[in-house]
């Protein structure tokens, strides 16, 4: 017999939660237990008294599964709320990457020139290497990394997506 897979779409969810032990395990465990996907996940404390964290999850699934993910997340006691940025309206998404390249001579100069085009900052340098810091959409980071592959790419670290609605409204 064949096992069928449904077509899926990408959604960015922000989840505000009580900052308590085990909450991240609860959320990631929910995704594995129910067979949902996580493309990226970021989490950090966002309140003055460190009581609340904001989690941004990029996931893929058919619309009815995305709706289930939202409902299942909202069912967890420490979860205050879930917003699907993809359906809620216009939003911005940003990601930070650190990219290490190694090289001398012309490739080194070319790497620096490309970094300038992408508005990447040099955060560390030695005579034969750079570490670039780059912020932007995932696409921008992916094309920068692709170019660096030919210019002595050594290592990439990415933060995963953080997203927010455009305009003055608070979610």
């Amino acid at each position: 017999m064949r096992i069928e897979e449904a077509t899926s779409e990408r959604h960015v969810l922000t989840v505000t939660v009580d900052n308590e032990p085990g909450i991240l395990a609860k959320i990631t465990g929910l995704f594995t237990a129910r067979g949902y996907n996580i493309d990226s996940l970021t989490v950090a404390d966002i309140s003055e008294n460190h009581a609340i964290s904001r989690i941004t999850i990029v996931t893929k699934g058919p619309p009815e599964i995305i709706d289930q993910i939202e409902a299942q997340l909202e069912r967890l006691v420490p979860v205050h709320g879930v917003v699907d940025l993809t359906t809620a309206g216009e939003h911005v998404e940003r990601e930070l990457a650190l990219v290490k390249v190694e090289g001398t001579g012309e490739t080194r100069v070319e790497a620096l020139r490309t970094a300038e085009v992408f508005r990447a900052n040099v955060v560390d340098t030695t005579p034969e290497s750079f570490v670039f810091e780059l912020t932007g959409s995932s696409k921008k980071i992916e094309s920068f990394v692709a170019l660096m592959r030919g210019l002595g790419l050594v290592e990439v670290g990415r933060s995963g997506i953080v997203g927010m609605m455009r305009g003055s409204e608070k979610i």
Partner: protein
Amino acid sequence: MSQERSGAAILVECLVEQGVEFVFGYPGGAVLPIYDELFGEERLRHILVRHEAGAAHAAEGYARSTGKPGVVLVTSGPGATNAVTGIADAFMDSIPMVVITGQVPTALIGTDAFQEADTVGITRHCTKHNYLVKDPAELESTIREAFRIATSGRPGPVVVDIPKDVQIAIPACGSANTGPASHRYQPQVAGKDSKIAEAIKLIANAKRPILYTGGGIINSGPEASRLLRQLQHLTGAPVTSTLMGLGALPADHPDWLGMLGMHGTFEANMSMNKCDVMVCIGARFDDRVTGRLDAFSPDSKKIHIDIDRASINKNVRVDLGIVGDCATVLGQLIEVWGDRKPQDLGEWKARITGWRARECLAYPEKSAKDPSAIMPQKAIERLFELTKQRNPIITTEVGQHQMWAAQYFHFFGPNKWLTSGGLGTMGYGLPAAIGAQLGNPDDLVIDIAGEASIQMNIQELGTASQYRLPVKIFVLNNEYMGMVRQWQELTYESRYSNSYSDSLPDFVALAQAYGWKGIRINDESELDAGIESMMAHDGPVIVDCMVAKDANCFPMIPSGAAHTEMLLYGDQVDGTMDDEAKALV
């Protein structure tokens, strides 16, 4: 509360404050400080089980039959892991339960200490919520929140893991009562008015309505069952129910269709398939109910009332989802209905009468293989007839006997039928009966069991003896894991791989060994007398009722089939199935 109390003393005080009558538990190293507090404590009673699985199921039985949360107390490591099946069972069936587990001292957590297990990690996905309490000052607020979460919204189990040093420590002065804020978790109880109005419009215009009810009605409290009867009376709609919802509508009601689903009645499943408006109240479109999804009730508008938003549109897309508590929403529906009159349902009722005429619960008088054997359906029918005056509480194990009990025993009110529906846990029935008997000391409590299931928690016979609980176990003994055997007959050409109950104990002698009365029924002529002597005995009884080994549980929707493709007794059944059907559980 006094500041000079240890964590263990605070815990016991909190349990008393919550009105806890019974704690089902088993002592061990990591809970000794709590057990010491319980020594001589007269405000609550500790029930010593024989295995922690028994504690969890007994708490479930108590909760399901009384509507109050069940409380479990077990030690760290194996104590907690043994309780996990019962916790998972309570999670699937939405049973309010608070489980206190001991943990190794905080300094030893993570060191693979003796009897250490990551209880919070292990129970994370089979609890509604769980806690590891590292500060005795947080104990009080944590226990209060645990009870609130377990009992409100969609009920469920909550685990509170307490390291041994936290049980001994005294909270620092002034730091008491900090901890999780209690304003969080506010489930939506009332349905949105606009949705209630929309629902009433659909129901009032329905020509072929059906109410499909579930365990949510029982969980919502007896008021929900009363309101269901009222709504049924106003709308005239026929009612079916899931396994978990039996008793919400009395079984002798003219519009009662019987249970639906895999072993439901022909009339219930046909009505579900042909209805034009389906009102699902506190049920969750489980795979055992829907049959093949793409053929499930194709022509109906579906309304789903559930306190859990995640249950709505999970398995079946509905036209109108109402998030709210069953009793509250039923009250709203009745109010908005006012003095409306339903459509003429004469034609719909006539079709249902036609389906009823199939007499889907008819079964052969005699077993084909052994004409002298008692038919198990007959045994349940007689048990029902001879005990119904006492309005008994029935618990079950899991398998054929469970389905026969659901089909041939009849219920007239909520909280009388305790069974493991979602998880399907063999070994549930005996401990659940013990919990139910404690919560309802004057009621007749009977565990309808199979000879295989009963052995899964047979050790709890000792618990009933110790507390002098007059529970009855009625074993339908067919010397097979009957449901497994039935599926092997229907899907694997009768290759009965490991489903024979070999080396069975002598249940009568076993009963006597535990100080119970044992009765064996071999022949139909002994059936009534056996049941009567079970009832007459003022103490626990095992009835070992030998029944036909080849009886199957019908009607049945084979796996992967639609509601309209039911098998009834006498239908030709193929000996095998295609892989797609086999892959479904």
